[in-house]
């Protein structure tokens, strides 16, 4: 609900500085602004609309801006004109709760719309600095509202401007001006907006789009049976997996056993080997035999060498040593005495050979000396056999004696001892070899023929089994891996499908919900269109007949019998025998105003939309009972009613104004002095001056000059 509280106008045409308040009394909801013609009624109506709707409310022709500044503005003194309008209003908003109920909250706002106009010679002027501010009035101060244009459009849509701000002279346009299409569109727009048909229709459109998208999605998914098939396959997989896992378990278990067997074989082979390996023993026997033979050969050789020691001259020398040394000494004595050796014979023989004696004498053949020497040589040769023998013995004795010295240094006994030790060692080695060979032979003979070989063979067989089981285990693992992978993939796919199925179910539910929503919206649209529109039509008829004071008791005598709104949004009036009346020709001015006001009031009443009806000269062309009926009906049916009335319109409705008006203001135009105003106005320029005179009062400001209506008024106390 929107309710006007106060307005202030500054330099808006003749409203140079006017401020007034509107009646907020729920019991007296009417505000009357009394003014003669050309005293600011239409200007104020326009200014109020400008405050709410901006320049669009000015109905300006393209490229021809309407002048807002006062017509007599002195542009030389002040080249720009600050224009502004402030409107304070209460606004009750509704919030829908979860349970479908609604709560109301009331706030007070202030619109301040302003601009700067630049007057020019042709009376128009550029408009700059257009500005709109909206404030939320709170006890702690005024709070600017963001996006004021949007907020205002939300609270008071431009489309409803003509419904709530009505120029009486143009009020009949709802039924009589323009083509049928224009009138119909105007009525249709008002009805659809206020009854919520537009909103419902848009909601239907959006839900319809939602339905389409749901249907498309549903079609793209579709019901499917693949998830079931995948479920079957997954069940098979579980069996395969169990089998593969059992096979793997069996193989692992067999492997364990085989490993134990192999270990057992290893242990037994080790044990057997510790007892002896036949082949190895054989090799050892052979080796021992070789060693034995070698030892035998060594022993024989050493024995031989040892025997040879007893054949050695050393042994004889050792035994003959004292005799040899005695002989050497004796012979050495002979030699010392010159007995031995025979020294001259070789010398003589050499001299004969050379033909010269050692003394130099020639021993040439035939010479006596040579003969003497040759005879001497023959004589010596006869006695020298013994000397030669002794000489040889001396040489031999000397050599043996020297050998004895050497022999005594080495020592045959030592050599004999050494040789003996060697022989003894060889004999020991031989004996050891013989014992080793015998031992090995004994072991070889005592070794079971098949132990190691059989165990080795069994071990190899076990190892083969192990390979087989490892392969089986590996194959089982591969199978498990493969099946598990398939299971993972199929599970994923199945889950996708299940999700898809869930999505399908969800979409079906969404579709059901959207269809229900759409269905209810359609029913609601029809209910509003048929029910509410009929209500509006009937209410309009009731108000209209009341306004024109139709004779409802003897309806057959009335010229106007019924007004209604057709399904095509035409407002039609019918007369006797159901004949449709042409508003332009068959209705008088009062009836035309009445039916327009009736439609507006009926629509606002039925729609429940509460906003002020601001009407300029609604009672023009009316009089008497009709005037009273129109005023009474409007006052009783409007949420807040602001009427701009001329003093002439007020005539005959003063009592009603007494009854319904909560506030009355009087506006006067200073330009009317002295022709129509009795007293010189307080301002010299052209402007509207406001006074608080009620509809039965006048004051020095508004006192009319020579007006017969003055007789009906009383002077308001100063």
């Amino acid at each position, binding site marked *: 609900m929107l309710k006007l509280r106060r307005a202030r106008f500054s330099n808006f045409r003749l409203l140079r500085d006017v401020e007034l308040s509107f009646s907020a009394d729920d019991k007296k909801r009417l505000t009357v602004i009394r003014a003669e013609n050309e005293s600011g009624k239409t200007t104020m109506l326009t200014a109020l609309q400008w405050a709410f709707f901006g320049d669009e409310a000015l109905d300006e022709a393209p490229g021809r801006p309407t002048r807002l500044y006062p017509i007599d503005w002195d542009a030389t003194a002040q080249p720009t004109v600050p224009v502004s309008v402030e409107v304070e209003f209460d606004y009750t908003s509704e919030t829908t709760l979860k349970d479908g109920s609604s709560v109301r909250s009331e706030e007070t706002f202030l619109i301040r719309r302003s601009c700067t106009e630049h007057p020019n010679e042709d009376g128009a002027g550029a408009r700059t600095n257009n500005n709109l501010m909206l404030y939320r009035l709170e006890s702690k101060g005024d709070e600017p509202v963001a996006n004021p244009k949007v907020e205002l459009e939300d609270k008071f849509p431009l489309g409803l401007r003509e419904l709530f701000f009505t120029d009486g002279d143009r009020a009949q346009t709802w039924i009589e001006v323009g083509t049928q299409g224009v009138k119909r569109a105007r009525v249709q727009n008002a009805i659809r907006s206020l009854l919520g048909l537009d909103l419902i229709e848009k909601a239907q459109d959006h839900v319809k789009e939602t339905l389409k998208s749901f249907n498309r999605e549903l079609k793209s998914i579709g019901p499917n049976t693949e998830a079931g098939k995948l479920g079957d396959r997954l069940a098979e997989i579980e069996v395969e997996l169990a089998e593969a896992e059992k096979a793997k378990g069996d193989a692992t278990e067999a492997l364990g056993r085989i490993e134990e067997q192999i270990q057992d074989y290893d242990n037994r082979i080790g044990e057997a080997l510790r007892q002896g390996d036949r082949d190895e023993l054989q090799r050892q026997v052979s080796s021992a035999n070789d060693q034995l033979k070698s030892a035998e050969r060594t022993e024989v050789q050493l024995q031989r060498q040892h025997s040879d020691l007893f054949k050695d001259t050393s042994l004889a020398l050792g035994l003959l040593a004292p005799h040899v040394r005695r002989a050497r000494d004796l012979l050495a004595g002979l030699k010392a005495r010159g007995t031995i050796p025979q020294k001259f014979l070789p010398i003589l023989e050499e001299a004969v050979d050379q033909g010269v004696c050692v003394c130099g004498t020639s021993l040439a053949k035939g010479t006596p000396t040579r003969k003497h020497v040759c005879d001497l040589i023959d004589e010596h040769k006869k006695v020298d056999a013994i000397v030669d023998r002794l000489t040889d013995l001396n040489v031999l004795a000397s050599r043996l004696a020297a050998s004895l010295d050497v022999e005594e240094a080495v020592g045959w006994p030592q050599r004999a001892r050494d040789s003996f030790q060697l022989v003894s060692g060889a004999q020991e080695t031989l004996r050891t070899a013989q014992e080793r060979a015998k031992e090995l032979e004994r072991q070889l003979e005592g070794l079971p023929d098949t132990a190691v070989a059989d165990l080795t063979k069994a071990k190899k067989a076990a190892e083969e089994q192990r390979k087989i089981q490892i392969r089986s285990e590996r194959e089982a693992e591969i199978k498990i891996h493969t099946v598990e992978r398939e299971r993972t993939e199929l599970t994923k796919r199945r889950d996708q499908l299940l999700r898809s199925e869930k999505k399908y179910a969800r979409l079906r539910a969404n579709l059901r919900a959207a269809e229900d929503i759409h269905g209810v919206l359609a029913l609601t649209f029809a209910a509003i269109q048929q029910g509410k529109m009929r209500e509006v039509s009937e209410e309009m008829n009731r108000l209209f007949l009341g306004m024109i004071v139709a004779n409802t008791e003897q309806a057959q005598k009335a010229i106007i019998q019924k007004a209604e709104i057709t399904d095509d949004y035409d407002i039609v009036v019918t007369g006797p025998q159901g004949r449709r009346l042409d508003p332009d020709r068959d209705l008088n001015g009062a009836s035309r105003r009445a039916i327009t006001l009736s439609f507006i009031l009926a629509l606002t009443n039925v729609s*429940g939309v509460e906003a002020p009806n601001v009407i300029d000269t609604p009672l023009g062309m009316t009089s008497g009972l009709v005037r009273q009926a129109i005023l009474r009906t409007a006052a009783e049916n409007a949420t807040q009613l602001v009427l701009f009335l001329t003093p002439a319109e007020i005539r005959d409705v003063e009592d009603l104004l007494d009854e319904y008006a909560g506030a009355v203001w009087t506006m006067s135009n200073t330009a009317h002095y002295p022709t129509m105003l009795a007293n010189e106005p307080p301002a010299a320029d052209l402007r509207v001056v406001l006074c608080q005179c009620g509809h039965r009062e006048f004051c020095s400001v508004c006192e009319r000059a020579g007006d017969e209506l003055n007789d009906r008024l009383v002077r308001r106390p100063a």
Partner: protein
Amino acid sequence: MAVNKAQLIETLREQVSAIDESERIAGYRQELLVTLAEIVEVESANRVRKTSVQQDVTAKCETLGMALLDGGWQG
């Protein structure tokens, strides 16, 4: 202000009664009415602010659909 929402919702409430709740879930009419009221709010807000009205309306339909499913509606 353009529409008296309380009156509009009252009309919606009257039409919701035409829905056979036995074919949906218990309490469905109230859920449906709440959804319709929310859609009225969405449309009303969009009239001046140009919100993502289509998405919002779809979301409201889905919410009601979810309520159907959660309530055990089998279709």
